């Protein structure tokens, strides 16, 4: 799984955030499903050539977001979506991010309907993958 994680040093985003974001995206797309095991911290560190503490920090961040759980002595696993809690603050952040996209879209001269269509198309890409995965 390590191969699709891209590290860009020199970015404004710290490396542990980059790793956490890419894994959470994979979870959203069901490339990683509930119960899947994440690579061991040291293995991922070695493959990505980054400090093991950075990987551990990324995993902690994912754990705080409820996306993974760590079983002592066994490893880190993608958690069950039913057990994830989304708190109001997280949803707030999401709403604010949507504002940025809407602003950009409107500034590009897109109409309301264009934006809605685009949103639905993108969303479908995630949801389709989830269904494909379930039918596997």
């Amino acid at each position, binding site marked *: 799984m390590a191969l699709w994680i891209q*590290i860009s*040093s*020199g*970015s*404004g*985003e*710290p*490396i*542990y955030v980059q790793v956490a974001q890419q894994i959470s995206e994979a979870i959203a797309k069901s490339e990683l499903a509930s119960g899947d095991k994440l690579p061991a911290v*040291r293995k991922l*560190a*070695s493959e990505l*050539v*980054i*400090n*093991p*503490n*950075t990987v551990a*920090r990324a995993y902690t961040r994912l754990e705080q977001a409820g996306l993974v759980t760590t079983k002592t002595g066994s490893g880190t696993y993608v958690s069950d979506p039913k057990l994830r809690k989304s708190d109001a603050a997280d949803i707030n952040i999401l709403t604010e991010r949507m504002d940025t996209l809407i602003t950009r879209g409107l500034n590009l001269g897109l109409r309301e309907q264009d934006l809605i269509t685009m949103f639905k198309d993108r969303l479908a890409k995630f949801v389709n993958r989830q269904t494909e995965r379930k039918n596997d």
Partner: protein
Amino acid sequence: MTETVLQTQALTKYYGSTLAVDHLNLKIPQGCICGFVGRNGAGKTTAIKLMLGLLKPTAGSSRLLGCDSQQLLPAIRQRIGYVTEGHRLFRWMSINELQKFQRAFFPKQWDDKFFADMIEYFNLPKKRKIKHLSNGERAQVSLALALAPNPELLIMDDPTLGLDAAIRRQFLEGMIELIMRQGRTVLFSSHILGDVERVSDRIVVIDKGVLRANCSLEEFRAAVKKVILSFTDSPPADVDIEGLLHCRRSEKELELILVGPADEQITQWAKKSGAQNHQIVKMNLEDQFIEFTAPPNHRRLFQWEEK
């Protein structure tokens, strides 16, 4: 409790009347990869040589693995690896001869197979003399020599200077490989902040011989911030915000470089100062370093002016 593997106390070095290292108080805990950064002439090489006992300090002291740097016992030296700036190796020796020579200093823990595997991986002929190797190949031999004795503390002085991206990556891999082993510590100086960011979990910044930062990389990343505030009128004359490092003004804007304050504090100050809006910019490590070590009232080399 984490052990301290490297400690300096008011370590100071003058070359004639030039102050190269100024009362350096440094503590490096076991188990980290520490990026040692500073501008050219900041005193990194001098500090490293003082730590290794290769130079005598004018004042102060330093200890490696609990032993005074000026009196490093052979038993302690065997636990320390050192890679010199420019990978200076004996030019007349072949790779094989150099291995035998180096192994004699580390009789207990030299790993012949590890060394042979690395040389093979690099595709270097063992009988070739150092003087017939390219810079990159010499650096690869130097890396193999540094890792083969499995040092508890590895100190490297700008090891990736002038190397191509692939060989630089091999050095980073080597550092990660070493740190995975129990109780290993790496200190390396570099000007390539992207490399430092990638492998370090600790950063030490020196400027003009003075220690400016010694903290986890994440703390440093989170601490140095740029804020742009815009005003309907001219910005306030007094900028009394905590942690202010640089303040640049234009007609209706302020650009602040801050060290330390939380985003909420910045937002509060922005409101108080009457800013119309403000933006906290995420800086990359290189920009943070440039701002952090810039002299006060620093201006750009070329400043665009409206004609």
